Each structure stands twice: as structure tokens, then as C-alpha cells.
């Protein structure tokens, strides 16, 4: 029997409110399946399971707030169909190795746990093996679930066309239209814990960012370095790449910046990792946090795992999916766990340069300002070229300005050879 616990979804999280279960006892789950939605101070987060098996028992009801580390469900290893059918009653509550709920980790000392599931490729890339049909539970995007509830659509009767046959909003709306003149709604809306109003969420997000950034400024001796990078080669390469492709296959310049930032950590590994309890722990991969600003205020920095190994198209896809989840206000647990360095790109409408504040317990924050035409002197001549100001805020307990400069120089080198990215 495996215990499923309220995960720590960031250094600043001490408790979460269970909003909704997407599974019920008896459901078979695979590693990486979304089993529940949890409300943290920052966002609604879909919790993915680390363990495959069969949901044995659900221990926390929707609407309940529990500390990080609390056991919220039990998963038993998958058994043979026969054994499962024979099992008439659930096991006694206090199972052999089912540990009691742990005391919560405090936010200050809890390093974000990197779950085993994170070693897998991005959710979209993970091929879903066909589950046994009678226990297969449909995957429904939270938005689709909400719309289905509003419009009285039974999701069990809807065919999913999203990634991994996930039922999407479009699928639900199609089904609702199809059923418009026909039978009335068969299924009652699923019981949902109340979603918090936007103003409430905004206030708690603001408080969470404030607490985390105050900790950063209090504890981390920042140093800052910056470098102007010529973006002509990257821009020319990208324009040629995009010209022949339909919108879905196009890349953003931001993706080239992200890839260069990820690759450059190979040259200066001491800016990629976490600093906890006086010790720097280098990361086991480049888990690139991407700061995404929210309309109406606030910023969330979900991570793209092993970003250095992703092709530009895979990185683009990961960024597209991540942005979509941020926009809908529902992240996955793998998005918010285990970031090892963060990039903030204040975009094409934004400012010239960023002077970053590090996300604890990380030790580096890379900033990219606006890519714009600026004067550029070369060979005794001044011309106009697209340039970007790349900056690094890093932790002096782990590295120094010289190494930080080498990191930015490495980003620059990578961006001069966009075809190699």
C-alpha cells in the first residue's frame, strides 16, 4: 500500500486545500495521472500520482485544508483482475505499512521534493498505454469539467480529442450542442468544493509572492551581472524557420532564449541547483522555471523539466502547454516542483532589462528584456541590430560575478549559433 500525501508545491507552501478528487476508490491509476485538484495560496494545482495502482481509500474530503505531508489517499499495487473482483471490502484503515500522517514540513526548511514522475518526459510526450477499459477513467480538463457541470453534460459519454484522449472544453461544448435539442441532462453536476473568488486568490498570491521574495532578499546575497547580446543571427534564423510553417509549428524567440539559458548551465553548473541549510545541492538536470506573469497581477514560475535536453519544438510545446495551464489557473504538481533555475523574460512589450530576485531555494535567476533594434558598434561602424539585455541574479554563497559573467557569455555564444540550439 502506498500513501499519497499532500505534496509541497514550492518552498513557500505549508498547507493545501483539497478541491476535488478526479478518482474514486477502485479506480486504476498510472503514474502521472491527475488524481486530485488542490488549492494552494498561489494557484489551483492538479496533483499527479507518483505511484500506479488502484485507489484504495480517499482520506481527505473536498473542502478540507491539510498540512503538507498529510496522507490524503492510499493506493494499492495493481492486482490481478480476479483478485480485485474477489476483494469485497476495503482493508482495515490502519494498514501494515500505511504510515500515519506526518507532521507538516515547515515551509522554510522544506526543499521542494522532486518526484520520480518528473524524470519522465513532458506529459504530452508520455505515450499513454491503453488501460483496461472497464476501470479506465476518462481524463477531463478542469475547465471542461466545470463547463460540463454547468451545462449538464455527462463526461462519461463524451469522446476526448485532447492529449491522451483528454476531454477538452471543445469536446464538452460539442457534446452540449449535440444534446441541445435532445434529452435533458442525465448526470447531476459533480460535487465540487468551492473555488475561491478571484479577489481572494489574488490577495493570497500577493502574500505568497511577498513572503517568498522577502525571504530571498533577507537570506540570499544577490549579485547582478548583465550583457547585451546580438540577436541578429537568432532573429534571421527564426524568421526563416517560421516563414514556411503554419502557426502551430512556429517558434517564439523566447524559446531560443530559454534553450540557450538551459544549455549555458553546462558551462557554469553552480548557478543551477538549490541552497538549503547552508549547503548547495547541484541539480540533477536543468529544470527551467519560467516566470509567467498573470493578468491582473502576480507571477508564477512553473518548471520545464530537463529543458536542456528538449529540442526547440519540444520546448515550444512545453511552454505552450504551461502557459495554457497558467492562463486557466490550473497547474500540475510537476509544473511547480523541482525548478532548479528560473528565467524571466519580460517579453516583446516589456522593458529593456530585468534585475531579478532569486526564487528560493534556487540560486540563479536569468532575465531577458525586450528584443529590440539598438545601436551596435562593430568594426568601427555603428549600425542597428536586434539585441537583448541578458542579466543574471545569482547567489554569492555559491558563485561569484566572474562565473556569472561566464554564464552570460555562454548564453551569448549559444545564441550566435541558433541552428545548434
Amino acid at each position: 500500500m502506498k500513501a499519497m500525501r499532500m505534496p509541497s508545491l514550492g518552498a513557500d507552501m505549508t498547507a493545501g486545500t483539497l478541491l476535488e478528487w478526479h478518482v474514486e476508490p477502485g479506480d486504476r491509476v498510472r503514474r502521472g495521472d491527475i488524481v486530485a485538484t488542490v488549492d494552494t495560496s498561489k494557484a489551483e494545482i492538479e496533483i499527479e500520482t507518483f505511484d500506479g495502482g488502484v485507489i484504495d481509500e480517499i482520506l481527505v474530503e473536498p473542502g478540507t485544508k491539510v498540512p503538507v505531508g498529510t496522507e490524503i489517499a492510499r493506493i494499492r499495487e495493481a492486482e490481478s483482475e480476479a483478485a480485485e473482483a474477489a476483494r469485497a471490502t476495503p482493508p482495515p484503515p490502519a494498514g501494515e505499512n500505511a504510515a500515519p500522517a506526518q507532521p507538516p514540513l515547515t515551509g522554510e526548511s522544506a526543499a521542494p521534493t522532486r518526484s520520480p514522475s518528473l524524470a519522465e518526459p513532458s506529459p504530452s510526450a508520455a505515450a499513454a498505454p491503453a488501460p483496461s477499459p472497464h476501470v479506465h477513467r476518462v481524463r477531463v480538463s478542469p475547465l471542461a469539467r466545470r463547463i460540463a457541470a454547468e451545462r449538464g453534460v455527462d463526461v462519461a459519454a463524451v469522446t476526448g480529442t485532447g492529449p491522451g484522449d483528454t476531454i477538452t472544453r471543445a469536446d464538452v461544448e460539442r457534446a452540449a450542442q449535440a444534446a441541445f435539442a435532445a434529452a435533458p441532462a442525465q448526470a447531476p453536476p459533480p460535487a465540487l468544493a468551492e473555488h475561491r473568488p478571484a479577489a481572494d486568490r489574488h490577495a493570497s498570491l500577493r502574500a505568497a509572492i511577498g513572503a517568498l521574495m522577502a525571504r530571498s532578499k533577507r537570506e540570499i546575497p544577490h549579485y547582478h551581472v548583465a550583457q547585451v547580446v546580438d540577436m541578429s543571427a537568432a532573429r534571421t534564423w527564426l524568421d526563416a524557420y517560421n516563414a514556411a510553417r503554419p502557426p502551430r509549428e512556429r517558434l517564439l524567440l523566447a524559446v531560443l532564449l530559454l534553450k540557450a539559458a538551459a544549455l549555458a548551465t553546462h558551462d557554469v553548473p553552480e548557478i543551477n541547483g538549490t541552497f538549503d541549510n547552508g549547503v548547495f545541492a547541484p541539480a540533477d538536470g536543468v529544470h527551467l522555471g519560467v516566470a509567467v506573469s498573470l493578468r491582473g497581477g502576480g507571477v508564477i514560475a512553473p518548471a520545464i523539466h530537463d529543458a536542456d535536453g528538449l529540442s526547440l519544438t519540444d520546448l515550444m510545446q512545453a511552454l505552450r502547454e504551461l502557459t495554457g495551464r497558467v492562463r486557466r489557473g490550473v497547474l500540475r504538481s510537476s509544473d511547480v516542483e523541482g525548478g532548479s533555475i528560473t528565467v524571466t523574460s519580460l517579453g516583446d512589450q516589456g522593458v529593456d532589462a530585468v534585475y531579478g530576485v532569486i526564487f528560493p531555494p534556487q540560486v540563479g535567476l536569468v532575465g531577458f528584456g525586450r528584443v529590440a533594434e539598438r545601436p551596435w558598434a562593430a568594426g568601427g561602424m555603428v549600425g542597428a541590430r536586434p539585441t537583448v539585455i541578458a542579466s543574471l541574479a545569482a547567489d554569492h554563497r555559491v558563485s561569484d560575478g566572474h562565473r556569472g559573467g561566464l554564464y552570460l557569455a555562454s548564453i551569448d555564444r549559444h545564441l550566435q549559433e541558433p541552428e545548434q540550439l
Partner: protein
Amino acid sequence: MTPDDARSLVLLCLADVAPDADATGLQPAQDMRRALDLDSMDMLSLVTAISEGSAIEIPDADVEQLTTLGGAIEYLVAAPGSGQRGDGGGPRPARPGFVNGRIGDGHEAGSEHRR
């Protein structure tokens, strides 16, 4: 495609790629990126949704023309192939699954308009 069709398609796509943005009161000449705080990913997702929802090819070089609601409507109305949506002249078979599969392949955009 009529201007009304184009307008509802753009607004439908906008609601899908930026569900947290409030497009009521959006003026035709306003730059949507500024008015609605769309970043480059939002803008690309919007163009993808519009292109696939209308089966009108939108080259990268033309994207700048779609940054206002008015500009986008004009572009779609004037586009060759507009009006024979989804069949003749469609540049490529649209694939389901756009941005988590929410905007489909032009068929539901069509049904949206016929309501």
C-alpha cells in the same frame, strides 16, 4: 467570411487562449497585446486558433496585421479562400488538439457561426 463571422471567430479564439482576459469593450483599433496584456505566446496561440478555425493561411509576416480586432477582421474578410472554409483552398488539414485541444478544426468554429 462576413465581418460578423470574422468578429465572432476572433472573439471566440481570444476567449479560448486568454480566458482570464476581459475582451468586453475592446475597441477595433486597440492593440490587443496592450489592451488585454497578451504576451508573445498568447498572440501566437491566437493566430494559431484563428488560422485553424478559419482554414485561412496566415503567414508569419502577416501576423502584425492581426494585432487589432479591426485588423484581424479585415484580414479574414479579405483573405483568399475566405468563405469556402474547410474545403477548397484549405492550406492543410487542420489537426485536432490545439492548445490542449480546445479549439478544434474549424468545424465547431463554423457551427458557432451558424447559431
